[in-house]
């Protein structure tokens, strides 16, 4: 059988799914947690607590800002608020975070902590969206886009007809979505059913890459019990987990430049988000923990951990019982293709942390660059059909107007061009520079 995939571009980096067989372990609690106020895309949340306040696990500690894109944040532990301070996070900048001293683990009474599967959905679509918003659910695939916004179908937009669930996990190394699909299959299915109800779509399609055959089989088995859900195996190709590419692969629709998935009648969410939605709607549990992969070739032990938000990443290392390998040269928050290199393991785990990857010197080393030999490999792997070699040159010379006409803002920053370049040119670095300048110019151009 020919597996579905997207049509333009794509690469296949070594998969390195070292931690695939490690079952999800619950990570313990540290002495204190730092919960950043900006864990999601959009405006930072507004703190509702002050120094000395006593909070429980699940207490709302920061509300969604008044901006359109923002999300609630809840305490992931019980204890006393020490202070609100600047803390280094995965962005490399110091941002405001609520620091809580952990005392026992007392949960809010409203949260249902029983492990029983709750299949019946009592809420109306409006209540579901409200709940997703209240519980601070954001996309757990990495971008951390507040989930409720996707379900607010407004005015003239056509209602979506398909819900797309991303179980692709096309990033090398990461295995958190894979473990979740294997271990929380029913919960994910209920979560998807809830999201279908919220979006009023009769159909949901789950895309899973063919390198996870057991997850495909298990999800397909379970999907039989849930009407309208279909599981499709996809050919392994990066960046299939990118929204536009996944839509193309699963339902063969192309989201036009600058438009949203809703414009082609679909909503895309991650399997991890589906699980969080299940917990939020059925169990009243806010988004206070998530599955994080901790992995690296030189680590003797790797693992997938259910970690509370705000826990320092060093906890993951301690949980594996390891010390940092001598050769460590790079720590990545997220996957190696799109993740961020961080300067320390002290950074807190946030809603968007899908994993931490430890690379050694050989892997982290950037190869010296050479002239572009015009091999056109960058253009042939670009999933957006752009010409990275050209954009790189234009951005380097700061020809931002031409960058704009060459559609630099279509770039999804997947890194396939830099990955594949035989001259080892940091194409994406230049493209990012050009893209951010073009976006700035476009903002300035708008009438005030």
């Amino acid at each position, binding site marked *: 059988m020919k597996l579905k995939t997207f049509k333009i571009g794509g690469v296949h980096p070594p998969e390195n799914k070292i931690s695939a067989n490690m079952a999800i372990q619950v990570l313990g609690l540290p002495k204190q947690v730092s919960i950043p106020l900006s864990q999601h895309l959009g405006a930072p949340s507004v703190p509702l607590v002050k120094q000395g306040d006593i909070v429980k696990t699940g207490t709302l500690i920061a509300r969604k800002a008044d901006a359109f894109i923002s999300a609630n944040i809840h305490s992931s532990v019980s204890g006393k608020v020490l202070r609100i301070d600047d803390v280094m996070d995965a962005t490399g900048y110091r941002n405001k975070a609520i620091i809580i001293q952990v005392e026992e683990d007392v949960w809010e009474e409203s949260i249902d902590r029983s492990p029983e599967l709750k299949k019946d959905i009592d809420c109306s679509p409006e209540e579901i969206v409200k709940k997703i918003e209240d519980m601070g659910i954001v996309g757990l695939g990495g971008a951390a886009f507040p989930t409720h916004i996707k379900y607010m179908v407004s005015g003239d937009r056509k209602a979506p007809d398909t819900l797309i669930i991303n179980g692709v996990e096309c990033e090398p190394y990461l295995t958190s979505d894979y473990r979740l699909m294997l271990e929380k299959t029913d919960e994910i299915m209920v979560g998807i059913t809830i999201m279908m109800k919220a979006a009023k779509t009769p159909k949901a399609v789950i895309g899973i890459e063919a390198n996870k055959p057991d997850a495909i089989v298990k999800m397909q088995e379970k999907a039989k019990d849930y009407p309208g859900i279909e599981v499709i195996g996809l050919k392994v190709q990066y960046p299939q987990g990118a929204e536009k590419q996944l839509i193309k692969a699963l*339902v063969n629709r192309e989201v036009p430049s600058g438009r949203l998935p809703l414009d082609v009648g679909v909503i895309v969410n991650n399997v991890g988000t589906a699980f969080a939605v299940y917990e939020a709607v059925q169990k009243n549990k806010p988004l206070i923990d998530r599955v994080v992969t901790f992995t690296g070739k030189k680590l003797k032990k790797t693992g997938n951990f259910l970690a509370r938000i705000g826990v320092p990443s060093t906890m993951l290392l301690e949980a594996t019982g390891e010390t940092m390998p001598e050769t460590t040269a790079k720590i990545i928050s997220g996957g190696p293709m799109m993740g961020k290199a961080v300067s320390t393991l002290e950074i807190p785990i946030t809603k968007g942390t899908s994993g931490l990857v430890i690379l050694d010197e050989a892997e982290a080393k950037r190869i010296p660059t050479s002239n572009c*030999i015009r091999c056109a490999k960058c253009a042939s792997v670009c999933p957006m059909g752009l010409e990275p070699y050209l954009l790189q040159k234009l951005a380097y010379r700061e020809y931002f107007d031409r960058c704009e006409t060459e559609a630099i803002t279509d770039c999804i920053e997947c890194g396939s061009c830099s990955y594949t370049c*035989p001259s080892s040119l940091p194409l994406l670095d230049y493209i990012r520079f050009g893209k951010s300048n073009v976006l700035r110019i476009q903002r300035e151009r708008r009438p005030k």
Partner: protein
Amino acid sequence: MTNRLTISLSPHEKGDVQIEKIMWGVVIALIPAFLASVYYYGFQALRVIVVTLVFCIGLEYLIQKYVLKLKKITALDGSAAITGLLLAFNVPSSIPTWMLFAGSVFAIGIAKMTFGGLGKNPFNPALVGRAFMLASFPVQMTSWPVPMKNIWSLGADAVTSATPLGLLKEGVKAGETVQQLAHKMPSYLDMFLGNIGGCIGEVSALAILIGGIYMLYKKIITWHIPIFYLLSLGIFTGIFWLVNPAKFADPLFHILAGGAMLGAWFMATDMVTSPMSIKGQIIFAVMGGILCGAIRLLGTYPEGCSYSILIMNAFVPLIDKYAKPKRFGTEVNYGG
């Protein structure tokens, strides 16, 4: 743990395809043609190839080290070897060594290094070298030793033949028809295997085809340029052949004769001097094939392949400007 962590932008993974891997891949693909040239032209072919290789790689090294004073010497990245091999393949086996030196200086020194080295040269260096030699040493560049004859004697052999294209051109000029010339012509099998007069590397279509298939298999090239080049050459010459079969040879003859195979598979596909998008490569190849046919049929030169590629090289920036890859999101499909 080292206390020096690297902070850089994503991606943090790097594919393993490097320039050297691509370039030496092309060199490997040229081995069958190398073996064929030695098989048909013996010691002299070996001499031509070895000295050109040494000249090209050595000149690139000397220029990088002493003229440009570069810190990173890339003479062994394989690209100078390709230029050396292709230049050697594009001359007759009887060519004097000093002429090869002049050709190498022009190919590496003028056509490649003055523009900024690998990746910056607008024209294929080996073809520029060949064009220079053809213009400077027209007699030596067009006297063709007979293949498989006295090939292991160390002195230059005085016996020369003509290339099939040369025979045709002269014959037709003298008023003979293609049919009358047929008995002088080699068979298609000889042309396919390479048992004909010509430049040492271009004679064996079979050897070139093996190398081409290897490059396709290794994904060094895509099939578009060679196939469209040969197809367009075949169609262009075919139209003339259909109109006047007495004056013009058939398309298969044109595809097998001269440098068409070598040009289509190894020189038009040179990534530095060919367009970036598939669409552009097709335009480039089709135009190149037509030019090659036009020069052969309508020009004074019997052979047009190298010029057709050089001329199309000049059009590459223009083609790149207009032949863009298909962008995502242009195929608007709202589904249902």
